């Protein structure tokens, strides 16, 4: 078994965040909220960037104890074929969506890299911005995705507690803790512009996980100075498969985490999905979160067939339409932004050195 990297337990940089997150923290939630709000306003203004997820496939080879799409669930399996994808994209475009996140399960023969690459290429023709939340890949695979127009990779460690990780990931490629830990670095190495990190709140001690997540972000930032980074705060919802989270995170702690991350990482995109309720999302808008998903369907093919009664990966909580959601944002004086990217900026980046500078020969 490979040993965990040193940065994962390096406490030099975490004191301030730890002080904000401690159960007996001296910082009141109101104090943190006010600071977080001020930073967000200065740095991101009164706007919210919107995106929507598109589930390409629910085939999966992993046995994550908490997931509704784990390979031992009886859920019917599908994948979207190219024509289905185009149909879904058209349905999404009608709602105004131009920024999408493509999702699959762990790598399987039915939904492998070639399938994902083809799907990204189709999506990049229709959408302004395409990100992927799928299985860990190699550097060269990430480079191929970047070449096809993928600019962002979301990959959650789920939990940074190695013991808990082992218990929860019962079989399949996801069992390898270190391989998953190294995945965001491989994506950046492959020229992906932005990596989205997160922990699945509820699986393990949330404060411990938050501190590790912060170390991971700092480590990536130091190693890849061009890296765009975002942090999501997925909190476990009732899952298909009926998993009860052993470390439930209440509203107050989740809010505290979001504020503390905004204060610690003033420039980082913070994401909140439709897993959360309308009331929580509306309340948090403007206080730290800068990116939200809308009108999510967590079933495969859910956009052009919204009547589909099949169970998704998890139940969404904020089921408002894009229009309703935008109205709520505007009531809070926040502008919903659908297009905040330009495909002219697609293509792999060189993660560290400048691509514009040709190699020069030493003079003799």
């Amino acid at each position, binding site marked *: 078994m490979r040993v965990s990297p040193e940065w994962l337990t390096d406490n030099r940089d975490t004191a301030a965040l730890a002080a904000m997150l401690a159960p007996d923290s001296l910082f009141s939630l109101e104090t943190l909220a006010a600071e977080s709000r001020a930073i967000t*306003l200065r740095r991101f203004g009164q*706007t919210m960037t919107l995106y929507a997820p598109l589930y390409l496939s629910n085939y999966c080879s992993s046995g994550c104890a908490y997931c509704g799409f784990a390979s031992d669930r009886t859920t019917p399996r599908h994948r979207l074929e190219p024509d289905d994808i185009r149909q879904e994209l058209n349905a999404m475009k009608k709602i105004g969506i131009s920024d999408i996140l493509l999702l699959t399960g762990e790598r399987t023969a039915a939904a492998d890299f070639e399938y994902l690459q083809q799907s990204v290429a189709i999506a990049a023709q229709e959408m302004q911005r395409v990100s992927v939340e799928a299985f860990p890949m190699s550097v060269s695979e990430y480079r191929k995705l970047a070449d096809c127009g993928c600019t962002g990779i979301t990959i959650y460690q789920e939990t940074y507690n190695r013991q808990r990780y082992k218990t929860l990931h019962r079989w399949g490629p996801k069992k390898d803790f270190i391989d998953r830990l190294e995945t965001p670095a491989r994506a950046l190495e492959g020229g992906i512009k932005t990596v989205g990190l997160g922990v699945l709140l509820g699986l393990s001690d949330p404060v411990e996980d938050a501190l590790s997540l912060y170390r991971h972000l700092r480590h990536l930032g130091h190693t890849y100075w*061009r890296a765009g980074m975002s942090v999501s705060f997925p909190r476990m919802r009732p899952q298909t498969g009926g998993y009860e989270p052993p470390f439930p995170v209440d509203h107050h702690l989740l809010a505290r985490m979001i504020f503390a991350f905004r204060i610690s990482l003033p420039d980082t995109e913070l994401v909140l999905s439709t897993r959360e309720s309308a009331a929580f999302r509306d309340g948090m808008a403007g206080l730290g979160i800068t990116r939200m998903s809308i009108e999510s369907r967590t079933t495969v093919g859910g956009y052009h067939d919204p009547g589909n009664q099949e169970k998704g990966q998890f139940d969404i909580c904020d089921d408002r339409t894009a229009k309703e959601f935008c109205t709520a944002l505007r009531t809070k004086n926040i*502008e919903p932004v659908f297009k905040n990217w330009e495909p*002219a900026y697609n293509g792999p980046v060189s993660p560290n050195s*400048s691509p514009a500078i040709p190699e020069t020969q030493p003079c003799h």
Partner: protein
Amino acid sequence: MDLLHFGSYTFSSRLILGTGKFSNSTVMLDAVRSSGAQLVTVALRRFNREQAEDDLFGPLSAIKGITLMPNTSGASTASEAVRAAHIARELSGSPFIKVEIHPNPQHLMPDPIETFEASRILAKEGFLVMPYIAADPVLAKRLEEVGCASVMPLGSAIGSGQGLATSEMLNIIIRESGIPVIVDAGLRSPSEAAHAMEMGCEAVLVNSAVAVAGNPPAMAEAFAEAVVAGRKAFRSGLMQKSGSAIATSPLTSFLGTL
């Protein structure tokens, strides 16, 4: 008349407005109008041809009397910025391009090397290139040499509201520059804009300070007035600050005894 010149374009307003971060486009458009700005910058990534409600370019281009300066915010390399400039010119018809290249999307600091390269290419192609740069006097001259229409050094980090933190370097840039110097980024208050103009900047660009103000249109107007006051003060010749005390006993009187 005291006009600002870029190529064949002349402007009487010396306040340039940014259009991001506003709570809605109605407020943004009101702020643009009340600022009296004649040059307004808009990010290419906020052009949305498919959804009018999400589009910033359409409503801005409908305002009479303003010239749009698309910007390449979001680009991380010279080649991306050049590509974006071409698209922006095609869509907007404007020869202006604000070259904004920040390879690190976290802090949005401009990349001097990529910015130089993109500016060189675009100036050669006939764009009126306005590069957003760190307050680096040498880079400013290099950009002037390759034909930029102006240089836009930052007063402090974007959205930081730290004002003219780079004033020492800005003074050198202003003193040395043969092209207009426009302070871009970091200004929080109209008094800072006035100060930048008193220093000899030809114009200032403001976005966050207006966009997130309690009353953006009123704040835009306040900035416009400050810019006018600062420019007038600069042109009127500010009183010199005394450098050191005048000695009561002359230091060089001994010379007369020799």
